[in-house]
């Protein structure tokens, strides 16, 4: 963790009382500021809330929204839910994996892309769906997916 991340965490703590029910909002703020929840941050949060650090880890690993490693600049999510599966979601995922050279849950070495599989976005009418940095692309094909990735920098 870098000095500015440590400062950011101290800044976040100043907005809280140190009650244990503040754990999830603090984790969200820390992830917002740092990009993920590093181990050192978990230890600091544990001390701030006076709870065991293993419990902070327990909560971080329970929720899919929290990351334990540094994430890429662009977050690519490919749906593998029922509707997308039926309409070739798996092929989209394979194409993206090949293009980026990583598996779901991984980040490229240059920290440009992180890839995730998602069970359903609730946009089944648009299946198959890929979401890039929060923007959904529907009725996608392998070629379109590759083009979208190429357009990002």
């Amino acid at each position, binding site marked *: 963790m870098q000095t500015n991340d440590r400062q950011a965490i101290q800044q976040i703590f100043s907005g809280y009382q140190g009650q244990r029910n503040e754990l999830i909002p603090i984790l969200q703020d820390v992830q917002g500021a740092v990009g993920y929840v590093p*181990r050192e941050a*978990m230890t600091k949060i544990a001390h701030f809330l*006076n709870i*065991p*650090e*293993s419990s*902070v*880890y327990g909560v971080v*690993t329970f929720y899919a929204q929290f990351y*334990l490693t540094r994430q890429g600049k662009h977050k690519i999510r490919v749906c593998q839910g029922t509707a997308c599966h039926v309409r070739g979601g798996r092929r989209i995922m394979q194409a993206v994996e090949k293009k980026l050279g990583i598996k779901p849950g991984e980040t490229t070495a240059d920290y440009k892309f992180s890839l995730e599989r998602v069970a359903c976005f609730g946009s089944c009418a648009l299946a198959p769906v890929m979401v890039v940095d929060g923007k959904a692309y529907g009725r996608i094909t392998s070629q379109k997916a590759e083009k979208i990735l190429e357009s990002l920098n």
Partner: protein
Amino acid sequence: MRIFPKDMKEIILTIDGSKVTVPEGTTVLEAACSAGIYIPTLCSDEGLEPYGACRMCIVEIDGIKGLPTSCTTAVSDGMTVRTDTEEVNKVRRMICEMLIADHPADCLSCSSNQKCELQKVASYLGVTQQRLEKTKRESILDNSNPFFGRDLSKCILCGRCVRACREIRGVGAIDIAGRGDASHIATITDVPISESVCESCGECVDRCPVGALAVKTEILPPTREVKTLCPYCGCGCGLVLGVRGGRIVSIRGDTDNVVNRGSLCVKGRFGLDFVGAHDRLTTPLIRRNGKLEKASWAEALELVASRFREIKDKAGPDALAGFSSAKCTNEENYVFQKFMRAVLGTNNVDHCARLCHASTVAGLARAFGSGAMTNSIGEIEHADCIFVTGSNTTEAHPVIALKIKAAVQKHGASLILADPRRIDLARFAALHLRQRSGTDVALLNAMMNVIISEGLGNKDFIASRTEGFEEFKKSVEDAVPERAAEITGVPADLIRQAARMYAKAQRASIIYSMGITQHTTGTDNVLALANLAMITGNLGKESTGVNPLRGQNNVQGACDLGALPDVYPGYQKVDDPAIKKKFEDAWGGSLSEKPGLTLVEIMNAAAEKRVKGLYIMGENPMLSDPNLNHVKEALEHLEFLCVQDIFLSETAQLADVVLPAASFAEKDGTFTNTERRVQMVHKACEPPGEARQDWEIICELAARLGYAMPYRAPSGIMAEIASVTPIYAGISFDRLEENGLQWPCPDRSHPGTAVLHQAKFPCGKGKFHPTPFREAAELPDEQYPYLLTTGRYLYHFHTGTLSRRSAGLEIISPSAPFEINPGDAAREGVVEGDLVELATRRGVVRARAVLTERSPAGTIFMPFHFKEGAANMLTNDALDPVAKIPEFKVCAVRVSKLNP
């Protein structure tokens, strides 16, 4: 079973057709259990909060839909419960089958075979075949801890380990991480357990119902088990030693023991390797041509007796002295001091209590008339406010720390911590006052100034139970918090808050230890704590009092049985003619009325050749005493030194004769723990080689000096103790098997005394003593700019003679460190792990730096366990004028980084 208040409302319910009566608040599971009805369960365990995870304890209850878990359902009047119906068992069988499908079920080679609770439940439910498809899990092994292994593939996620670690130990090294079928027990970021905050207490291992957590060395089960006591600190925890082929093969906490209820610390559970160590002394040794050589018992005993006789004839009895042992039993301490007094004719007998709680004995005897813990360990949990000062309880008295943590975590007590270091208990403290070491009196006087000036004192108690208040009150009139803030460095406002918190509590308990006593102001520190308890009336009631935590397993007993230079057993003064007459009648012959020398005085007298012969039983002054260069010189000046020990300790290496003794595991007898509880020690195995019981050796020596001590067994010695010691008068072995007895126990029908001073003090009224502030004997200056303080680590004990023979403890805590604040370290150019030279006016040692905020700026902390970096080369042997205790806790030190 939980303990309920006596006036709790009773509930009557029906379980499987039988009427069951239990107190309100009981769970259905507990009620069934109390009626002898078995309900299978995997996640419920003694002392843990109900959890409802395993779903195995489901029952049918009329009026409640579905199948509620009996462990989380409270009883109510008229409830009708059925525990063993077809519907219930069908669901239980399904749960069991799913658990087994996700479990290796390699029972034949599992170390928990026959002990496994999943096996027991499966057997009860008749689950014989694996009907469901097995899950495939990688074996996830973590063997990083030296004592136990973790095999998560066997884990059934009952959560007992997680809850024990958090609820009982207050540590929280592990929790359940992940979700769904990825759920698993994890440390933070799944690091190996040895890299987590785990303290290796083994509570989780003890509570694991399957084989996921297992002690590495427990391969074959013991053939018999023996209940005895832990030989380490003064908590007095009950142990169950498993023995096979004459060796200890398993250790567990005694769940019946009222002190620890099965809990232990890492040393008690895993640190007993020393008993079977290969370097135990097995024959007597005699120094010939400068070397210690093997000798026969007859030869060695004859030599010791003749040398003692020679010195006594030539230079008088007071040229002899003896150090008794806080590690030996009460019976052995009694026989030792009797030997010194009745056989050799001197009162020069003392022991290491001089170095730890002499100021407690002196201070509390003056204030109350009796120098021991006023209340009991179990009561701590129910105090509203606990004031801990000068006690790193988590590390030095781990099982007592559990009660403090429980008081805070379970019952909402407020903990006030006054300690310069940020010790573990700071996590639980409502207020942490970090006074400069050696300024305790100033801090306590200021708290009392606040209590008196704000009218928070207990006027009735002061008027009816105490004397000397007016004079005392004047002495603290000027001790305002602002002035104390300048001296102690604790903000005035924090002192006020602490004073109010302590004074306003209904039941406030003071707990202290060597951070209070090991000062040249040690007696004043203790008197100030006594004053604090008296002005608020926190004495003579449950969960209150002034509670010194004694350091050694039997240091209380060694004091009780007269291993002190000024008192016979039971604190009866040697210079009181009536008492002297009583002991002369009991022991035969004439006794000296002249109080003897204290431990440090004996060392000084030896250096000056006034004491010429010294008999040391089970002590290691060559590491435990202050200013070791001086100790070595003193011991070398002796004409004759006899050391009786289980190892060739640093001290024994200087002896003329070494006598091999039995360890605690090879003995019968009693220890008295810090709460005055006399408990039984039982022999589990035979001593190695020719090693003998300490009391037998002393009796042999006495016989050779023409004095008969015809004891046949420790029980007979206790009978004699009871006949001459009023506070032990009602104690005999046949009364001690269950829970022991707390003294005073004046007669055979007396149940023992949990709370002292209930109606009156032994000295009538409690006495206030003004305690004006004095500085420590040596303060940091330009030449020696840092303050050095010493203490214990969790993983070792005292001089390490016992704990450092445990390979596992040595892995966790291998070598001499010192702790320094990161700011100070930066100034000295020291980084983590640097080898550094520490120097005081008395000596120099080398140790590795540990940079930590635990140490306040300007203060260096060093544990005293390590001979390769012996803290006591540095410490100051300046004495408290009253108690003659040395100032281990404050001296001035210089730090110099060694060139790489």
